[in-house]
């Protein structure tokens, strides 16, 4: 069973933006603080509702975890990653603007992953939606 992204009312603006190739995060209209997309209330001044704002899509790597392909067993795979034939590199990335995202590295060899690796958002289709993944930036040393 491959799990597909499905929007709900609170995430609709996020997926709308993703469909345009744009990454958005929450922003507080009173204090300008940016926060992860699922944030509901400003963590500085408690104001809600929060607005949305586009970010650059540039990020650095905070941490990563590798889901290795698992030899098939009698047990039905329960996650998309357990069906994968290549390692899936899950990650926490820090957006240039500060918020962290739980995401996946795309086209990054886990052996070359390191804290501070410079990344750029890309979008991949998942069902009817687009979801953000991050890939290395050619020419950027990272560090």
């Amino acid at each position, binding site marked *: 069973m*491959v*799990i*597909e*992204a*499905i*929007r*709900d009312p*609170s*995430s609709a603006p*996020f*997926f709308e933006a993703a469909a345009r190739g744009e990454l958005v995060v929450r922003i507080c209209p009173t204090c300008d603080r940016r*926060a*992860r*997309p*699922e944030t509901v209330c400003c*963590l500085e001044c408690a104001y809600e509702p929060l607005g949305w704002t586009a970010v650059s899509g540039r990020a650095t790597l*905070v*941490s*990563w*975890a*590798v*889901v*290795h392909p*698992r030899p098939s067993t*009698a*047990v039905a795979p*329960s*996650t*998309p*990653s357990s069906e*994968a034939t290549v*390692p*899936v590199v*899950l*990650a*926490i990335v*820090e957006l240039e603007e*500060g*918020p*962290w995202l*739980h*995401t*996946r590295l795309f086209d990054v060899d*886990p052996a070359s992953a*390191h*804290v501070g690796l410079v990344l750029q958002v890309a979008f991949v289709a*998942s*069902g009817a*939606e687009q*979801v*953000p*993944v991050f890939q290395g930036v050619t020419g950027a040393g990272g560090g």
Partner: protein
Amino acid sequence: MTGSSGAGPVTSGAGAGAGEAAIVGLGITEVGKVYGRTTADFARDAVRLAVADAGLALADVDGLLVSVGLSGGVGMELAVRLGLRDLRMLSVINAWGATAGAQIQLAAMAVSTGMAETVVCVHADAPLAEPGASAGAAYSGGAALRTGFGSAMAANGFAGANPMYALAARRHMEAYGTNDDHLAAVAVGQREWAAMNPLAQMRTPITVAEHHASRWVVEPFRLLDCCLVSNGAVAVVVTTAERSAHLRQPPVHLWGFGQGHPGYVLERGCELGLHTGAVSSGATAMRMAGITAADVDVCQLYDCYTYTVIVTLEDYGFCAKGEGGPFAASGALAPGGSLPTNTGGGQLSSFYLWGMTPVSEAVIQARGQAGERQIDRHDVVLVSGNGGTLDHHATLVLSPHRRS
């Protein structure tokens, strides 16, 4: 108090009240791959076993605090199902892996204040549905990952707790040099303890090489870095220190307790993976108990993963930040080591019933009933619980001696 090196407990002017409660009953059902019984069946059994262990009758119980794992199916109705009447305290408590600590803390406060006199705390779970079912599938992620923001994570391959803790562990490894051998040392040491625990699901000794050869679950975690999945239940009975002296079992006194909920804001500067709620929870509990880490004889630390033990040891102050890995690799935690830790095998090797795994072994050690794995010096036993992705922490300081 006898036998403890700690000068603190007697003379400290800190905290009063925690020492007025004691754990007097422990009930552990059959645990592990036990099929054909529901979570509620296990819960009732554990309560009956704990009350009988204390030398009490169900009619003596006037408080019940219920906890249930992800299998669900147990709630407030447990009281009437057991025929408990005229209770003075009844709640379902949830702080994930910190629940057992939170239950016992509430129970201690209830008996210390006179709100209730005999409070049973129970945790039950039965995630393994049938023989052969995937253990991992039992915890592969809930409704939160099916729609909305969570579904974007799930579409990228996130499922359950394993990747979240793997990300935290990797961060610790990158920041402090914690490595595969350090993680292995935790698993190997605990298996050595488990070999002496008849209740443990996994009792065959393992080597560092076998740890390294076990399959990846989510790198940096291999199979032998991850806790078991178990069916079963554990309950404890909490009453006043005064009354505990007249019951069937040697009392286990509560010297101190605390909680810590860091409220990580996931953004630049976040300490996820590096420091946990154990920092404040441990400080609160040890201050209340009038001890320092140096006074602790035995540790029972929540070990959902090998890494969790390492970061918790650091946060409690048993070693410097970043030194948890080398500390484990020195053999300190294993049989014969300077800080016997997870002496029943922990969640990695004995059974996984949230915070009741470390609590149950702490009670057994504090009573001096651990058989061949009994630690001679067990005057101060430290217990941790940890829930969410290091989001929630609870600490208990236990002792066979009443705080004077």
